[in-house]
């Protein structure tokens, strides 16, 4: 009986019954009619859900025969796992869309019944197994849609609607013609029967028949360039209707395509090309779009293209088993995310992307928007991520590298315009704030919540255990609930969560991972303590920080490339969002995100190639990739170094580091940047050394590293902004580390890891010190500071020590790094790199001195007279790190021995100790002794001077008591030599630091926009032109495929 109630036929019965009775009910009481309407939609969704659950648990496919006569003689419907999934998803979306749009829908009986019939039509398209019946359902859906598009009767809607009608009518006409020709040849209309008698379809008529069917279905999916009519509708139609066209109608059509695809065996390449062109073109054109709904239209069309592409390619290569996860995942992801976005657009009612500045500061709205956008571009934990992963892996297995590139480039472009929109939404300007209550946000919020749930289940079906892996998400979610608490309390909660979670996840790691765990997790925690210094609410900050730090922890525990990549993307997402929280962080955050995604996609491609070669996603199996090793290594290494800010790809780095909150920057630079080093080490360890690839990629990597070091240092020299200077410095220092790893030798790796630890320590100190200074002075410009040593002596000492540790001047830790690296390079015979290294470390002195001079020394500004020392809680981590620096300086064996042991499994070898002196092939380094001697030669003159001071009178003088060309300066601004400190250097070699990279990437951006402009001129807005495109599309498909059949 239960089965009977939940029989899928009930969907149609409920829908039709409700629709037919609605006019009668409506005449009695509007409210009652809309209640029945909602109940009917809910009932339909419930039936679908029940069916889906049963089928997912192994119930047999339900074959529905009508008229009590077996197919092919009567129409039959099928309700299998895939059908039930699509029907359920569409009905769920429809329910939410109706909820969203009910205030308008309930005004007329016709809108209510049209909506429910439209949904039923889509269900029919999914379930029917009869070709002509499919046509009927397509028409039912279309006609219902036509009216719903235009019923508000505004001029734009009417124009768009009419074009839509004409275009889809042509498509339907093609379908009908194709159907009748198929019938002519096979004598049947049942799809299964047609497929069984596929051999009967042949000759010119069969060819035209198939092409007509194919063209029709493709046109319904709005392929580029024959899709202007669809875009117009997305732009003008009411959001709920646009969402249903985007997710519902398209779902029906794509399922129809799936059903008849066995007929199109010879056209699969064409189909894939159509999908690919559409995906790429619409995402390029999206770059130029400022209208939110049209933007969503481009994205919708692109997503459909992606699904078509995936379906065709997977079918073509017999990957039927993966179809469910990949296309299903992409579909579900698109359905929920796009629908959610359309509804948000309907709620917010701002046409242009810029107008969305009005939503800034609305947490729920932004959360929903962010979730949908992140899902749409395929970030974890949402379904699209797992699906895209699967797609790329399977494409790689079939050696479809060009397609992988297309998918990834398209996704990157999509991210560019979607997150540009998000950026506008984050940044409040003087536009009028949007007034939205909570109630209208519920449907999109429900979509977002469902995305998360769906992500969880997709992850499970992708073979991932989402318990530990998604810990960052859970933690962020939990902390987000506490976001109303006072700032410091939240900070403490965050620390507790990170400490607990981090220990749980990464507590029992060994070897190399343990070392990185100490830097990334323990170190990150130490730096996170500093967040206590600001007591304000910092909405969203603490959850994101927890997510970032925990994703670093999960990154370390990854055994498979999927786990690794998941954590990597979570890290990308959370760090991106953290950067947006900075005062002017939105814009640089976008370029940070794009470069991060670009690098992530390279990594993804690398993993995919490795998977194709080894058949395994175990990280440990990377080395078995055989001939693919150089390619895998190059892709992965390039991905990691881009994320590390490698020269040429660095342009995201200064902006992101500068504009993020000060303590965020400290964590990004000191801690998170090490994640890419970790990745590089893992990859190099599996590939570079073990598989013994040729030296060429490693040598290139070494040069990338050293050039990064040089240009990072050079660019740091010319910065006026404290944090920007440190950002470039970070870039440069990471360059050394990359070069060290590239050496692929024991000593080189020890050097790299030693520098990694060291960079964490001193850059942490420097950025936290900078945070303190900026906190007190309220400026980041160094020439506006000066003389702060008097006010902030502890900070000064910290900075000075950190700078000595960074510069490589003995006796602090920096020298060890330089010594190890130089020796390793000479060992390897990389003399030129060593020479460049010398130069860049000399250049580094320039900016290091500049920090000390212009911030802490020189003339203090009058306004800064009463500044206090930085907050204590900022100083605590600095002091802790300084103590570590001192200990490691005096006794580096403490660090070097574990490092050597940790890298030994990858790069065999050992450090040669002579007592406390480290020996290399060339030289020796006795750190404790150096410490003692330097201490001695420093202490003795000091004592001497102190003794002298006892005998004479040392008189402290006032600030301006200097001999200054016979005048006494009276304003510190006149006397503080700080602005354009190295102007002469710029005159000498400034030509080297012309922003070529920035110019290049601007040109790339400019070029893509120009491309977008020239691709979209086809969208003239003229309905007849659009019809013409459809005809041309048919003709083109015909002639492109003549000869294949």
């Amino acid at each position, binding site marked *: 009986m239960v089965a009977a109630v939940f029989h899928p036929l009930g969907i149609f019965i409920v829908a039709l019954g409700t629709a037919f009775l609605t006019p009668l009910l409506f005449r009695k009481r509007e409210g009652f009619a809309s209640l029945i309407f909602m109940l009917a939609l809910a009932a339909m969704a419930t039936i679908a859900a029940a069916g889906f659950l049963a089928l997912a648990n192994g119930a047999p496919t339900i074959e529905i025969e009508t008229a009590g006569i077996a197919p092919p003689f009567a129409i039959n419907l099928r309700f299998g796992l895939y059908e039930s999934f699509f029907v359920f998803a569409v009905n769920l979306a429809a329910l939410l869309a109706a909820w969203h749009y009910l205030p308008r829908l309930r005004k007329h009986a016709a809108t209510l019944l049209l909506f429910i019939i439209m949904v039923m039509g889509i269900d029919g398209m999914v379930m029917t197994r009869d070709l002509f019946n499919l046509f009927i359902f397509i028409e039912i859906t279309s006609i219902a849609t036509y009216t719903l598009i235009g019923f508000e009767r505004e001029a734009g809607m009417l124009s768009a609607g009419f074009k839509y009608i004409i275009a889809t009518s042509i498509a339907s006409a093609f379908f009908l013609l194709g159907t009748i020709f198929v019938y002519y040849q096979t004598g049947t209309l049942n799809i299964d029967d047609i497929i069984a008698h596929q051999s009967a379809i042949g000759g010119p008529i069969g060819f035209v028949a198939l092409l007509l069917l194919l063209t029709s279905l493709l046109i319904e999916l709005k392929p580029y360039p024959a899709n202007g009519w669809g875009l117009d509708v997305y732009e003008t139609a009411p959001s709920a209707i646009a969402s249903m066209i985007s997710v519902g109608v398209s779902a029906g059509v794509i399922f129809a395509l799936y059903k008849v695809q066995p007929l199109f065996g010879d056209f699969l390449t064409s189909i894939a090309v159509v999908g690919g062109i559409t995906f790429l073109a619409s995402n390029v054109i999206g770059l130029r779009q400022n209208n939110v709904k049209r933007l969503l239209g481009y994205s919708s069309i692109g997503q459909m293209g992606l699904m078509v592409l995936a379906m065709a390619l997977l079918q073509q290569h017999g990957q039927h088993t993966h179809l469910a996860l990949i296309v299903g995942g992409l579909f579900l992801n698109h359905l929920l995310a796009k629908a959610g976005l359309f509804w948000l657009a309907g709620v917010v009612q701002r046409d242009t992307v810029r107008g969305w500045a009005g939503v800034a500061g609305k947490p729920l709205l932004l959360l929903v928007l962010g979730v949908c956008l992140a899902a749409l571009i395929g970030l974890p934990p949402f379904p699209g991520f797992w699906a895209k992963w699967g797609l790329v892996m399977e494409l790689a297995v079939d050696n479809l590298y060009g397609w992988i590139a297309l998918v990834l480039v398209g996704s990157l472009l999509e991210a560019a315009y979607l997150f540009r929109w998000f950026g506008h939404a984050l940044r409040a300007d003087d536009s009028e704030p949007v007034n939205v209550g909570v109630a209208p946000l519920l449907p999109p919020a429900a979509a977002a919540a469902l995305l998360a749930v769906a992500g969880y289940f997709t992850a499970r079906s992708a073979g991932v255990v989402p318990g530990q892996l998604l810990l960052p998400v859970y933690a962020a979610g939990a902390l987000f609930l506490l976001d109303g608490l006072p700032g410091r309390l939240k900070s403490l909660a965050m620390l507790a969560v990170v400490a607990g979670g981090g220990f749980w996840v990464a507590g029992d790691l060994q070897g190399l991972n343990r070392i990185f765990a100490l830097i990334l997790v323990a170190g990150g925690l130490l730096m996170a303590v500093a967040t206590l210094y600001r007591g304000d609410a910092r909405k969203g900050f603490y959850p994101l920080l927890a997510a970032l730090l925990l994703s670093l922890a999960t990154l370390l525990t990854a055994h498979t490339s999927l786990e690794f990549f998941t954590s990597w993307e979570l890290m990308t997402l959370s760090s991106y969002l953290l950067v947006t929280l900075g005062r002017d962080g939105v814009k640089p955050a976008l370029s940070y995100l794009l470069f991060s995604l670009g690098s992530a996609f390279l990594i993804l491609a690398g993993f995919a190639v490795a998977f194709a070669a080894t058949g395994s996603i175990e990280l440990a199996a990377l080395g078995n990739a055989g001939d693919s090793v150089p390619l895998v290594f190059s892709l992965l290494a390039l991905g990691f170094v881009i994320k590390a800010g490698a020269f040429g790809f660095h342009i995201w780095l200064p902006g992101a580091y500068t504009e993020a909150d000060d303590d965020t920057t400290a964590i990004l630079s000191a801690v998170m940047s090490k994640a890419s080093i970790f990745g590089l080490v893992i990859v190099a360890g599996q590939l570079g050394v073990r598989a013994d690839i040729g030296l060429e990629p490693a040598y290139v990597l070494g040069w990338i590293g050293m050039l990064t070091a040089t240009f990072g240092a050079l660019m740091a020299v010319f910065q006026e902004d404290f944090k920007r200077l440190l950002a470039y410095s970070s870039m440069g220092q990471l360059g050394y580390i990359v070069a060290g790893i590239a050496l692929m030798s024991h000593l080189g790796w020890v050097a790299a890891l030693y520098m990694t630890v060291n960079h964490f320590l001193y850059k942490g100190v420097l950025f936290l010190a900078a945070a303190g200074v900026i906190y007190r002075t309220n400026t980041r410009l160094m020439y506006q500071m000066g*003389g702060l*040593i008097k006010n902030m002596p502890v900070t000064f000492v910290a900075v000075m020590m950190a700078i*000595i540790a960074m510069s490589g*001047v*003995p006796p602090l830790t920096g*020298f060890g790094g*330089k*010594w190890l690296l130089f020796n390793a390079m*000479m060992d390897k015979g990389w*003399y*030129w790199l*060593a*020479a460049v290294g*010398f*130069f860049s470390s*000399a*250049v580094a*002195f320039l900016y290091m*001195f*500049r920090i*000390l*001079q212009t911030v802490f*020394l*020189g003339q203090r500004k009058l306004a800064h007279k009463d500044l206090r020392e930085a907050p204590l809680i900022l100083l605590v981590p600095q002091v802790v790190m300084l103590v570590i620096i001192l200990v490691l300086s005096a006794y580096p064996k403490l660090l070097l021995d574990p490092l050597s042991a940790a890298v030994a499994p990858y790069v065999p070898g050992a450090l040669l100790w002579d*007592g406390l002196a480290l020996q290399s*092939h*060339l*030289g*020796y*380094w*006795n750190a404790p*002794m*150096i410490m003692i*001697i*330097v201490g*001695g030669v420093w202490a*003795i*003159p*000091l004592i001497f*001077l102190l003794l002298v*001071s006892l*005998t*004479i*009178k*040392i*008189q*402290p*003088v006032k600030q301006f*008591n*200097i*001999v*200054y*060309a016979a005048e006494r300066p009276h304003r510190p601004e006149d006397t503080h*030599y*700080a602005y354009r*400190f190295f102007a*002469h*250097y710029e005159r*000498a*070699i400034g030509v080297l630091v012309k922003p070529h990279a920035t110019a290049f990437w601007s040109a790339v951006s400019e070029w893509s926009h120009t491309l977008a402009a020239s691709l979209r001129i086809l969208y003239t807005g003229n309905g007849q032109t659009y019809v013409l495109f459809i005809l041309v599309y048919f003709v083109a498909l015909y002639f492109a495929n003549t000869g294949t059949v």
Partner: protein
Amino acid sequence: MDIDWFQKIGNFGLTLLIVTVYGLFMGAFIERIIAKVQGRVGIPYTQPIINILQTLTRRTAISHGIMFYLGPVFRIAGGVGTLAFVPVIFGSETFSNFSGAGDLMLVIYFMFFGQLGMALGAGESGHPYAAIGIARGLSQMTAYEVPFALSVIAIVLQYDTLSITEIVAAQQGGWQHWTLFTNPIAVAAAMLAFLGMTGYSPFDIFLAPQEIPIGPPTEFHSAYLSLLQTNRALFGATKLVLFMNLFFGGATGWVELAIKTWAIYMVAIAVGVAFPRFRIDQSIRFFFKIPTLIGIASIVYVQMALVR
């Protein structure tokens, strides 16, 4: 570690004394030569020592703050420390100093120690010219560091060691084994770098703020100045010793050392009196051109001709 620290320290003290005094005398000597070239009489040989004693006995001093106070200390620690890591007389345990603590890399990097400290001290005085001078000095340093590093790499490659003692050892057995003759290209690059390092004309623009009676030397006076002057002599001599060790076969006795260092120094002086001063950007660009090319050539030479 079985180092006899007392013995070592005592020996080093002796070296320090000898080198400092030698440096002071040589400073006076050079001043006299320059004076002769310029048609003056010049200072007496004892003048540097008198200067130091004189400044040391001033009874008043001012301080701009703690770094100002510590600046000279850093400075002289840099000088003394650098000397400590350089073996002065080849084959003499007594005058090998603490060269067991580290190799050539250590010396090269430790040379920055004093400069950094001095820069900080001068910086705290709040005097803009101090900052200008330092900014220029550092910029020039990055420039001459390039040929210097290249020539150092060349000789490290040539002798396959970073240990200064072993580099000297490899040059023993006659003048023909000196780097000067086995690898003249590297020496040429290094000597050009040396011109920049010593800060004589034409590469002395970064000292310009000191020439008018203002700037760091006037801010630093009395005991501070005595330390600085001592260091000037000491550090200069140490650099000469280092160059002698690397390129001119080292010295087996004090006399050889005196002659060789004097000769090296004379190169700088000869150039200095003959050429007018470069602007800072000119001097930076200079080092990036010819000297750098020579440095590159020296490595190529070593790779092609000397190492297999």
